[in-house]
């Protein structure tokens, strides 16, 4: 199993009443409500949590990014990845991921990722995403070409990573007369690519065709099973067997010393889901051209308020369906076993806290996970045969079907102490 720590990096330190009055905490909710002193404190707390996660035994730290919204204050996952590359020693740095369509220069992205891979001595997992609907608007990027840009940027980045330059790229959305970055990844053939997603069948199919693990982001258990059915059938058509090493899952999971405390803090997962202040905006999250034409009717109705947010179930229902898991180590382990048994992922991310959960409680959660939950899950993983891509030495992709070379074979001996960033 590959067990990751994750936080959305919530920026909860803003006047809640202002968010409610505005009616949405996204895109156009004014950044005059952003308090940089609180921002500075929170960024540093999150860094501390990441380092603790490494210390207590997590295998990976999962990072992401969003724009113009308090639910996630990480505006560029490569920034945190760079910091972690130098300040951690063991954990994989798992980007889920860089929103490819938002970039106008995929070559720069390829360079940045290669730098992170080298500085971290080959610990990068470079996931790619399409970016949310409102992200396209926040970045001024045309939503109608979102998927085309995603696919073309991916192709260019992998080429820049794996084929010696200089070469020329004349694509539909990207034109680069000279591609020859003087930074290439340490890992060969290139850092692993994992594709997270929640809604689009197209993305699942694309990932399966590429033989990239797909990371289901907090989908319900039954929906997750359907994802794997689809993934496995595409994999079979493509000539390989799907299974645990291609399956990842992000689980909201808060652990505390007592059930009461765990439940109280777990309620904060509703914070970004709209019950408190994480209010989405139906128009901004679904710009025309962004979503799949096959579900145009649903999105059009959602955009004008004729259909409710499909992810807006009540807290109690989400506890019952295990969309949210909360409790003491003793009570969460059986619930997580059920998840592993029913959906068989080998990559498991823990979204440990959200909203206003205090830094102290978050640290307790991370510590309890490391001391009690993760060891139990590793045993369950062995019992169920849930071997991660690293353990299974799985190929990097369909394009590179030979087993990936572990970075350790290519890396100089690690420094005795982590590098200090001054």
């Amino acid at each position, binding site marked *: 199993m590959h067990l990751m720590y994750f936080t959305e990096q919530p920026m909860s330190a803003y006047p809640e009443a202002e968010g409610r009055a505005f009616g949405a905490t996204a895109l156009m909710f004014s950044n005059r409500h952003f308090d940089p002193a609180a921002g500075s404190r929170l960024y540093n707390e999150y860094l501390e949590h990441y380092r603790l996660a490494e210390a207590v035994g997590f295998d990976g730290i999962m990072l992401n990014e969003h724009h113009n919204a308090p639910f996630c204050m990480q505006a560029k996952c490569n920034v945190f990845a760079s910091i972690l590359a130098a300040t951690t020693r063991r954990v994989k740095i798992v980007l889920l991921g860089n929103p490819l369509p938002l970039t106008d220069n995929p070559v720069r992205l390829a360079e940045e990722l290669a730098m992170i891979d080298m500085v971290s001595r080959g610990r990068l997992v470079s996931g790619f995403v399409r970016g949310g609907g409102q992200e396209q608007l926040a970045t*001024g990027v*045309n939503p*109608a070409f979102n998927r085309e840009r995603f696919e073309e940027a991916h192709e260019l980045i992998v080429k820049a990573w794996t084929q010696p330059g200089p070469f020329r790229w004349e694509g539909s959305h990207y034109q680069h007369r000279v591609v020859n970055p003087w930074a290439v990844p340490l890992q060969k053939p290139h850092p692993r690519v994992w594709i997270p997603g929640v809604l689009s069948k197209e993305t699942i199919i694309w990932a399966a065709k590429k033989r990239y693990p797909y990371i289901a982001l907090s989908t319900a258990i039954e929906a997750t099973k359907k994802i794997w059915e689809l993934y496995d059938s595409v994999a079979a058509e493509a000539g390989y067997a799907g299974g645990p090493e291609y399956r990842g899952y992000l689980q909201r999971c808060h652990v505390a010393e007592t059930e009461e405390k765990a439940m109280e803090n777990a309620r904060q997962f509703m914070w970004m889901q709209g019950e408190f202040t994480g209010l989405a905006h139906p128009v901004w999250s679904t710009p*025309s051209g962004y979503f799949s034409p096959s579900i145009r*009717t649903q999105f*059009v109705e959602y*955009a004008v308020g004729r259909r409710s947010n499909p992810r807006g179930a009540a807290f109690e229902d989400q506890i019952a369906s295990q969309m949210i898991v909360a409790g003491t180590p003793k009570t969460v382990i059986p619930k997580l076993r059920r998840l592993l048994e029913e959906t068989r992922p080998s990559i498991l991310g823990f979204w440990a806290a959200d909203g206003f959960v205090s830094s102290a409680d978050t640290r307790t959660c991370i510590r309890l996970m490391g001391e009690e939950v993760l060891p139990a899950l590793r045993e369950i993983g062995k019992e169920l045969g849930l071997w991660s891509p690293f353990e299974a030495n799985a190929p990097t992709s369909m394009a590179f079907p030979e087993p990936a070379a572990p970075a350790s074979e290519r890396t100089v001996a690690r420094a005795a102490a982590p590098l200090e960033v001054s």
Partner: protein
Amino acid sequence: MQVARAGDGPPVLVLHHDIGTLARLPFYDALARRFTVVVPSHPGYDGSQRPDWMRSVRDLAAVHQWLLAELAVTRAPGAVSIVGLGFGGWVAAEMASHAPRAFKKLVLVGAMGLKPERGAIADQALVSYIDYVRLGFSDQSAFDRLFGAEPETGRLEHWDLNREMSFRIAWKPYMYNPTLPHLLGGIATPALVVWGRDDRIVPLECGERYAKALPRARLEVVEGAGHFVEMEKPNELAELVTAFVSQGDA
């Protein structure tokens, strides 16, 4: 491309808004009493096939020139007048800039295409399909009459498809062409610029700029109308167009 046609007389090409057009409008009927009215759907709009390759409004303008060359009624040089509504007005201005002497008369109504100096062209990406169209009406009861107070989902899907096509060809810069002001100066065609006084989608200052930049143009402001002048004040607009297009005819 779908092309609707009605009436008899000198040819008038009407180019529709970014939201598309209803199949029949009193404005079209009024024009059809004096003219052969040709209303094509822009490629990619209102069920016309989407040209995946298209990337700009100048591309769209070029395709409309092909259409004019195809139709017997519009083929003769200098015979056709163009009435461009909103986004269609931008297309019309681009067509005239391609071919500065090809048209008899040019009418731009609330036309997009120029960057406002003070205000901004309303960004439909930030508002719902319904709110965007409502924004273009000065009198909301006119919207209710035409589309119903709560337009049906099929209509919204239709607006979504049209919006997607607008994004494909006019996303950045949004709804204007920075070189167009420089190209307008060569247009020899007599032009009438019409604006709704209450246009909240394209500011009136754009009408003033069009009237100034086009060598042979005047501006008419219609009171009590927003962006969709042809839907709110069909008779007033038809009278303005009829008088202007017929002017100088024997």
